[in-house]
């Protein structure tokens, strides 16, 4: 049966949105980045805001996000995505502005920008991909690397005495009065993806209210950095990453808002 025959008489129920470009991604097989890209662009598509959306790509594996997301984008220096987004949003206050950042980008070199952007309550969306490792540069330790976790720069496992504790930045963020909505998700199951999409939709919808920063963490895998198959990686993530970074809402907007 040719594909054409197979779908004959059937209805299309899912197709990649045209807010994603046709470029194949450079991500490793099974990497969460692609899922999050797709879901974000589905939301942009469904809300019909492609013409009012400006994204900021990080330095990290998602550095090429602008090759895939079919919206106007800027590629920021390592760690500075939220500063770049602040610049954009301040001069274009009616646009939807988001950043997309890895854990190295957001929680190591960009810590200061992250905290101050949220503290100012910039009306932007920050999407935070926490895969516990520097994927792009070959799997070095990230601030969020778990204790005992082996990376190329914690070859015997992260040890707390010399390397410090995993940095759980999301609750810190949530504590800042400028944070409007802080939530943590994953994309390892269809149900998780559905939840993430709902959260992202809310986060985008809050933006024109000018009530503060929305912060969506996605606990993610990095099959290459972790040296696992995608299947193993997702299982490992659920077992280990979720203990340290449990999915769920961390801070909800005040009741009146919804």
């Amino acid at each position: 049966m040719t594909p054409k025959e197979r779908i004959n008489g059937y209805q299309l129920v899912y197709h990649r949105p045209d807010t994603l470009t046709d470029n194949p991604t450079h991500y490793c097989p099974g990497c969460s980045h692609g899922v999050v890209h797709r879901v974000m662009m589905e939301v942009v598509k469904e809300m019909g805001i492609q013409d009012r959306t400006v994204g900021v790509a990080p330095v990290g594996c998602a550095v090429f996000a602008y090759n895939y997301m079919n919206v106007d984008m800027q590629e920021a220096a390592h760690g500075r995505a939220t500063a770049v987004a602040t610049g954009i949003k301040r001069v274009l206050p009616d646009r939807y502005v988001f950043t997309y950042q890895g854990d190295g980008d957001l929680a190591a070199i960009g810590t200061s920008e992250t905290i101050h952007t949220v503290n100012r309550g910039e009306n932007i969306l920050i999407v935070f991909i926490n895969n516990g490792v520097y994927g792009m540069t070959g799997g070095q330790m990230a601030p969020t690397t778990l204790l005992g976790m082996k990376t190329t720069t914690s070859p015997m496992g992260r040890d707390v005495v010399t390397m410090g504790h995993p940095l759980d930045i999301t609750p810190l963020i949530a504590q800042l009065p400028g944070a409007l909505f802080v939530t943590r998700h994953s994309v390892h199951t269809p149900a998780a993806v559905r939840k993430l999409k709902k959260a992202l939709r809310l986060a985008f919808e809050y933006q024109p209210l000018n009530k503060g920063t929305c912060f969506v963490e996605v606990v993610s895998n990095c099959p290459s950095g972790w040296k696992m198959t995608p299947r193993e990686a997702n299982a490992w993530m659920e077992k280990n990453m979720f203990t340290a970074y449990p999915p769920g809402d961390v801070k909800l907007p005040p009741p009146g808002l919804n």
Partner: protein
Amino acid sequence: MSPVQRTTTLMKGNEALAEAALRSDMDAYFGYPITPQSEILEYLIIHGPKRGSVVLQAESEVAAINMVYGAAGAGARVMISSSSPGISLMQEGLSYIASAQIPCLVVNVQRGGPGLGTIQPAQGDYFQATKGGGHGDYRLIVLAPSSVQEMADFVPEGFRLAEKYRNPVMILSDGALGQMMESVQLPEQGSLPKSIPAWATRGKPENRERNIITSLFIDPERMEQVNIELQKKYAAVQSEARAELDRTKDAEIVLVAFGLAARICQKVVDIARERGKSVGLFRPITLYPFPTDILSRTADHAEHFLVVEMNAGQMVEDVRLAVNGRRSVDFTGRMGGIIPTPEEILQKIESLTVSTTDQALQGMP
């Protein structure tokens, strides 16, 4: 709007610059306090917002320069200012901005270095400004004011050049020019045309491809193309080279100085001429592009060049490159926030003429 009469006001250099930015319809300013230029931020935060300009005190210079990247990448007319150590922190950001070809205006009100140094005026950041303190082959267009008037004038001019060439422009000033008051004619409000650039990231309408601001070109062939584009631009920028020549035509000795040092040298020329010495002053106004050709022509008739800087000798290299061995090029300077006095420059001039006319006598016991 009816044209506003240009009136003369007494103002600090920093404030004149800030007011000129507002009159140049600057959309946004990002900064972080640092002496001797905090007045710029302070002035703008009072006057900017009510005149339609975004003014934001960032958490650091690193954040500020990246806010500039974002806002200017979104098509806004953006300025940032700092002083030496703060400018050093912006070097990565400036390299990105130059690579992504984002127009913006960067002001360095220099102080004495290196390190934390002193807050007194200096010119030690010439190399950083003109050769590119960040990584890779890029250039800032660098304007060197030498009066409060030029602190104001070079703002619209800086924006114009930045937008014309899609390149960051730096105003390389110093603490004395920032802090001193002189009378100044401010630019007229609205005299600098503004339009939204086609490449700006402001949301992708259906009828155009998405706009991307990036400095990442992982494929080296593509990266080289970008570099070639940049180099072509810098070649075109050479036509913007400017200098002010003061009594150089018949000068045997030509002083070369920029910014505040040029003001001192003007006095030196006055005194020297009174004393019957044929001294002139060559003042580069653009430090990049360096006015190589104009200076080279001066070397057709002048015998000696004496470069005077408030540093250990930086611009002197560009002077030597321009003169290319045809004439003697000497240097005198003061460092660390000390401003050379006319007297010591005059002495240096004496020693120069002695050393050439009476060379044979030198070194005798």
